[in-house]
């Protein structure tokens, strides 16, 4: 592997809103440096997980090392560090940005600057990164590059005069991006003879090597045989391999100050190589770790249950496997009267939750039932106990509660001025507190609200998108806890309380939610031989009721001329549907019903 001088290294990220073309540009950069020919290159190299491809977003960040011969004849090493593009993964984004000296800011020439972009730009500015704006999708007829340039200058306050105008899709003007990277982004600094100081910005579990940690070396050097120490927990490991990632991982003799690469050190669990941690030399440790490390904590919880009881161990094994790669996923066993044995799982946010659910179903081929997501509520009982409630079932009786608190987030919503009214209505409806509104330009504003997290996880994003035709964008961060008048809303099916359907809601919302859930369940639960009452209740008080009428007819009347095979197929299909149901008392409830409490349908 070719070594270059420190001043010929450029470490950079690409930041962009979802769909603004980050992955496509990354593909082009990779292609142009000849690392992979386009024929070899699978679409969107950096997004390798199947699910990421499908959703068109990056979840796990990775990096790639590109060799580039500059116009000046010098050989450069460009380390591209990919970042996840979603608010759930803000912390990871901030750590990968911390590994860079600069960032390419991709802005869609038709959409302009959006809330997510801005949030990531602020993260980059916090890290003192040099920001290089790039305007993408200029091939689209609706592109308005000049306006977008002005937007970047007005809203973000950086010079966009010479921002390259490119089309990543068509490979247009990509050379100018390289030129900007080399000219604008400063090379790394740092003394390679100082004690080792390296930042972990990602890690994953490899079944052959153990944990592989992606690192940026800030000072000193790291090589095989060396004993290293994780500064957050003082655990020591012996390095067995260091290397860089091109189209594959290539071992090198050492990584030095300024380099980006990976390290393998017999680490068995990603928990011991947490993102944001600093690696130092066991023999000759650095005095201070790199700033910014924090242990990420889950914000959203839900129950995950095997659809069929006997799969409990398979679900556990799958969660364990996912956790090896994802230190922010937490889970512990729990039981539900309705759903049997399962797990209470904690996630960074809703997207993170959905991703884990889908991976369980797809990669592990499991059939699971998920309960409605919940945030963590704080309860102080009259006896003075302090409780954290992740599962509504565990909420103490109202009479025992002195005070309850719920998590609040600071939300920023960027929107064209046309939708300000609709957004205010939505936020008000979701118990938001208006903070202020800033005009970014004449036709665009950023609105700041404090919102209860339990309202945000309840279909807020979809509601926002539909009320603003997709023009508004949302970003939020945890602010703190606030006292709130909360109640536990229970659902009874055929007179039986279904613990997996209980939710905690604000008292003012209980009636409406109860009614909607009952209506939804009426649609989702198939009719039985008998009529089934569905009730929503707070304590012993019924606040909403629906009835599923008794089934009168379930027959295959025709004879189909001896076509028993077809008849059997129709019955088998029906049986298959039945299998996906949970027996609650004498009622069979489809899995989808457990998610119906999630849907708002405004």
């Amino acid at each position: 592997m070719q070594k270059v001088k420190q001043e010929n290294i450029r470490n950079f990220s690409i930041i962009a809103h979802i769909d603004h073309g980050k992955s496509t540009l990354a593909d082009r950069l990779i292609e142009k440096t000849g690392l992979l020919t386009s024929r070899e290159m699978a679409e969107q190299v950096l997004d390798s997980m199947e699910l990421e491809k499908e959703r068109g977003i990056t979840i796990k960040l990775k990096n790639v090392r590109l060799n580039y011969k500059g116009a000046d004849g010098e050989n450069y090493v460009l380390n591209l560090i990919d970042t996840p593009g979603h608010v759930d993964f803000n912390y990871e984004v901030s750590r990968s940005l911390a590994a860079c000296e600069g960032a390419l800011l991709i802005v869609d020439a038709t959409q302009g600057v959006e809330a997510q972009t801005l949030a990531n730009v602020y993260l980059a500015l916090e890290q003192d990164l040099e920001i290089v704006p790039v305007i993408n999708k200029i091939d689209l007829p609706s592109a308005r590059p000049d306006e977008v340039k002005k937007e970047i200058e007005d809203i973000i306050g950086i010079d966009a005069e010479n921002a390259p105008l490119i089309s990543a899709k068509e490979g247009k003007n990509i050379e100018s991006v390289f030129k900007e990277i080399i000219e604008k982004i400063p090379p790394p600094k740092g003394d390679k003879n100082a004690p080792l100081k390296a930042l972990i910005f990602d890690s994953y579990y490899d079944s052959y090597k153990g944990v592989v940690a992606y690192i940026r070396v800030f000072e000193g050097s790291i090589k095989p045989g060396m004993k290293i120490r994780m500064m957050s927990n003082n655990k020591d490991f012996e390095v067995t391999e260091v290397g860089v990632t091109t189209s594959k991982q290539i071992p090198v003799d050492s990584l030095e100050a300024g380099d980006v690469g990976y390290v393998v050190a017999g680490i068995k669990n990603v928990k011991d190589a947490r993102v944001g941690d600093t690696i130092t030399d066991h023999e000759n440790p650095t005095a201070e770790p790199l700033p910014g490390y924090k242990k990420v904590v889950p914000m959203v919880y839900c129950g995950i249950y095997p659809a069929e009881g006997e799969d409990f161990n398979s679900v556990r094994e799958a969660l364990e496997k996912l956790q090896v790669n994802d230190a922010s996923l937490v889970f512990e066993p729990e039981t539900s009267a309705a759903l049997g044995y399962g797990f209470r799982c904690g996630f960074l946010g809703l997207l993170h939750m959905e991703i884990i659910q889908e991976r369980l179903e797809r990669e592990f081929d499991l059939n699971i039932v998920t309960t409605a997501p919940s945030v963590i509520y704080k309860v102080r009982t009259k006896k003075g106990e302090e409780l954290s409630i992740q599962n509504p079932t565990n909420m103490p009786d109202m009479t025992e509660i002195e005070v309850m608190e719920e998590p609040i987030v600071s939300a920023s919503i960027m929107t064209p001025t046309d939708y300000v009214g609709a957004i205010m209505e939505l936020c008000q409806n979701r118990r938001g507190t208006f903070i202020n509104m800033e005009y970014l330009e004449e036709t665009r504003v950023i609105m700041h609200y404090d919102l209860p997290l339990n309202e945000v996880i309840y279909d807020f994003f979809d509601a926002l998108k539909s009320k603003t035709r997709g023009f508004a964008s949302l970003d939020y961060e945890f602010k703190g806890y606030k006292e709130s008048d909360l109640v536990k809303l229970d659902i009874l099916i055929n007179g039986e309380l279904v613990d997996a359907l209980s939710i905690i809601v604000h008292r003012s919302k209980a009636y409406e939610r109860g009614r909607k859930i009952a209506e939804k369940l009426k649609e989702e639960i198939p009719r039985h031989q008998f009529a089934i009452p569905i009730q929503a209740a707070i304590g012993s008080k019924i606040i909403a009721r629906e009835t599923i009428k008794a089934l009168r007819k379930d027959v295959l009347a025709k004879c189909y001329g001896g076509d028993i095979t077809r008849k059997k197929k129709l019955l088998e299909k029906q049986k298959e549907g039945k299998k996906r149901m949970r027996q609650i008392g004498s009622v069979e409830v489809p899995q989808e019903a457990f998610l119906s409490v999630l849907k708002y349908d405004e």
Partner: protein
Amino acid sequence: MKKIAVYIHIPFCSSKCYYCDFVSFPNMDNRIDQYINYLIKEMDMYKDILEEYTIDTIFFGGGTPSYIDEKHIGRIFEYIYSNYNSSEINEITIEANPETVTYKKLKTYKDIGINRISIGLQSTKDTILKEIGRRHTFDDFLKAYETARKAGFENINVDLIFGLPNQTVKDCIHSLDTVVALGVEHISYYSLIIEEGTLMDKWYKEGKLKLPDEDSEREMYHRAIEFLEAKGYKHYEISNFAREGFECRHNLFYWKIKPYIGFGISSHSNIGNKRFWNYKNYNEYTSSLKNGHFPVEGKEYIDENMKMIEYMIMGLRLIDGVDKKEFKDIFKVDLDDRFGMVLEKYKKQGLLTEEDGNIRFSKKGLDLSNIVYVDLLPN
């Protein structure tokens, strides 16, 4: 010698009814000759297998078998009589639509040996007939019926459908009353099923069909049973009623899963442990035969366990249900040993009853038969 039922599919039609999902081709009259040639070719390919059987029943279904010229039907019989064991045939049925029959045609049928005719009436109300794409009126039916009697048919079935768009309980009873007054021997009374891909399915999905609600639909069924039983018809299968001794022998082969063989497009066969079915596509069917291959699109082997399940599913369609002794004679296993748990469960729920060693559906069970069937299937 073992008995077998023979089904022959005639896929031609003057037009497609809006609810029909059987394989039928309107406007393909120029292919009729060719099709009959292939049909006979197919029958010839099964000659060896059929040597072990004697034919008990023949059924011409469609499409509209009465749509094509009677000479074609004659050719088929020529083949059957001279190649298959046909000395013990008990019942030969042909389906007919009112607008397609003439005295000459019906007389020819009778002379060939056809002894049962099944007329598609569906409803006695002309407005309903029009709405479901039938090409005849009630008067056309009446003429056809009388002509059939004149031609000497003493076993006539009439097909009726209930649960049609804009149909009322009164309409249904009126239809039944009318055909009973005529003195038909057999009545098939089917619940409308909106089949995927039919014109009605399209309208249904577009919300354009005004179908009776479920309560009325069930009333149409329950009232019909009461009415026909009072008139001396035996309710012997979910959808079928007959005067004593006029039960459809051919369909009983299906319901009892006895051997049957189907010839022609899309037809199904059940011989030994094998179930197989022909191509539904005209060109696949004909080109397969042209190349000397059996025109079979798929087959299924039925093991002993599945045979028992199918025997239950089909047998329970019969109002007398499944006879435990007969089950044991066929399978050498006690019905209760094999299905006891499921049967108990549904006896408790009131869907099944047992009387004199016969397991049958209760009145409620007839309406909810799928619940039991689904539980009989293997997991």
